[in-house]
């Protein structure tokens, strides 16, 4: 039994009865047991429940009962997405023992289609980070070379899919947190348009920019998951009723006759040579398929990282004020403490990156600095959106490398937060503007590390975006995971 098949292939085999779901899930659990100590993608593995579900699904298939369209696909969820009865820790000591009383909308939609939630995967604490090193439970490693970071903050999602520990995963993307690990782990990751997927049950970090996004081996798999998890939700007023779109249908439409803008600001200074040459090669392959590629200048991108971190920190400091360690959290008696002293003491257990962002957030929002930082950041955001609106009048898609650099070694940048922030230069634009963006694995560096290419489309153009991503995916043959 090959754990390296795509989710789409799994479904077609399971549907035909050509594959035992129980056997597949059991083998997946064995693999997690065997290799996860090297990768550390998982925080919680829900073994017994996964096996029970798999058995029940096999029974349904055999007796020709109506089965959900996932047919038991083993899926991992980033540990900031709520799962009833299963811990949701956000990789933080502050939520070490938190068990959500309800399922996030994405969780319940997956379950209702017979997906199997095999476990919860690692992230930077509260999704704040670009490498998954800031997890209270320790870092996740890159399955292509465990000395390197897997990207982040959804590093557990990227690594678990790449390491064949599940067939797909859901992450969340606030500034690139789905696309960065997708790029660094050689899998596909989509940040959908703001409002396409419900955030109900996603633990909030920066509400105005974050979205849940699928991570999988292929573009078809991502489209398949999007069909299930997208759409209006009464529990999230920011979701948009966009009508029913089938993202899988016509996915092979290609890019012939389409116009693609190459974002000048994302391929210039500071880009790794091998990443730059992979991008050039991706562009020429898309041209071979009949697309016209033209340079596009978006000068507001130069200010995107400063604007992004100002806004994200501001929202983080506000969102995280709710954690007082009273209703849930770690064991720490209130005895002998005055209210504020207790809370400040408990909250000293936030990790360094979360603390840093709360301090920054408090600063940029404080009287006297609000106009200097926060307001200007919001104006940059508007400027980026306006420049993108102009660009999309002329082109169908935009292209850039997902990450400006190759994966780097664990620990290499951990003491230099600004350096880490700057690696988000190519991803934050989609979050600030709300448009969708996808990372497609494209090539491997000479040292065997993955390089992903990013494609953007205008808001709610996911169907077209996935078609272009599929075309790009088909142009390269990448090595199989050898771990």
């Amino acid at each position, binding site marked *: 039994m090959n754990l390296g098949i795509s989710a789409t292939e799994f479904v077609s085999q399971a549907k035909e009865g050509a594959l035992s779901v129980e056997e597949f899930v059991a083998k997946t659990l064995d693999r997690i047991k065997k290799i996860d100590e090297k990768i550390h993608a998982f925080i919680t593995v829900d073994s017994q429940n996964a096996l029970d579900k798999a058995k029940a699904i096999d029974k349904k298939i055999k007796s020709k009962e109506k089965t959900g369209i996932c047919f038991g696909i083993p899926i991992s969820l980033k540990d900031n997405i709520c799962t009833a009865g299963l811990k949701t820790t956000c990789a933080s000591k502050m939520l070490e023992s938190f068990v959500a009383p309800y399922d996030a909308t994405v969780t319940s939609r997956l379950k209702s289609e017979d997906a199997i939630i095999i476990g919860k995967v690692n992230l930077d604490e509260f999704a704040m980070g670009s490498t998954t090193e800031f997890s209270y439970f320790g870092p996740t490693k890159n399955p292509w070379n465990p000395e390197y970071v897997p990207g982040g903050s959804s590093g557990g999602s990227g690594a678990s899919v790449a390491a064949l520990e599940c067939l797909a995963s859901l992450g969340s993307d606030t500034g690139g947190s789905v696309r960065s690990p997708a790029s660094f782990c050689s899998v596909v990751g989509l940040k959908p348009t703001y409002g396409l997927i419900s955030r109900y049950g996603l633990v909030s970090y920066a509400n105005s920019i974050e979205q849940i996004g699928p991570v999988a081996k292929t573009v078809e798999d991502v489209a398949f998951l999007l069909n299930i998890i997208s759409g209006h939700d009464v529990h999230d007023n920011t979701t948009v009723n966009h009508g029913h779109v089938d993202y899988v249908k016509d996915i092979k439409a290609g890019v012939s006759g389409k116009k693609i803008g190459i974002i000048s600001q994302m391929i210039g200074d500071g880009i790794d040579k091998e990443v730059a040459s992979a991008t050039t090669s991706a562009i020429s392959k898309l041209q071979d398929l009949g697309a016209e590629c033209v340079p596009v200048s978006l000068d507001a991108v130069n200010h995107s990282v400063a604007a992004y971190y100002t806004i994200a920190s501001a929202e983080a400091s506000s969102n995280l004020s709710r954690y007082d360690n009273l209703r849930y959290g770690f064991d720490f008696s*209130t005895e002998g403490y005055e209210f504020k002293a207790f809370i400040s003491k408990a909250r*000293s257990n*936030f990790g360094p990156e979360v*603390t*840093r962002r709360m*301090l920054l957030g408090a600063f940029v929002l*404080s009287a006297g600095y609000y106009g200097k930082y926060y307001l200007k950041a919001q104006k940059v955001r508007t400027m980026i*959106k306006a420049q993108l609106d102009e660009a999309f009048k002329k082109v169908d898609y935009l292209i850039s490398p997902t990450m400006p650099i190759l994966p780097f070694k664990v620990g290499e940048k951990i003491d230099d937060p600004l350096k880490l922030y700057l690696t988000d230069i190519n991803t934050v634009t989609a979050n600030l503007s709300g448009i969708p963006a996808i990372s497609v694995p494209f090539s491997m560096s000479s040292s065997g590390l993955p390089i992903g290419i990013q494609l953007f489309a205008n808001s709610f153009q996911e169907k077209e975006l996935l078609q272009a991503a599929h075309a790009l995916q088909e142009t390269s043959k990448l090595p199989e995971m050898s771990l």
Partner: protein
Amino acid sequence: MVDRKEIEHLGDLVKVELKEPEKYIKQVEQILNYFDSLDKVDFHSDDILRTEVAAENLRDDVHEPCGDSLIEHLKKDQNNFIRAPKMV
């Protein structure tokens, strides 16, 4: 210029007792200096993106009782009370 006093004040605002405040001084200052690049932006408009939600699209304001599962996993004592520190 960010100093220890400023960092401790920010820690106080976000209610976090900072174990090593000096660790944050240089980093926060360096990041704020980078944020200062926002001063150089040439804005042509004061517009700010806003998302509007029509009031009729909001859910009805009706009471929905919470289930037992909501209190099942809480940190509580045997009488189902959550213990909070003294308010003084």
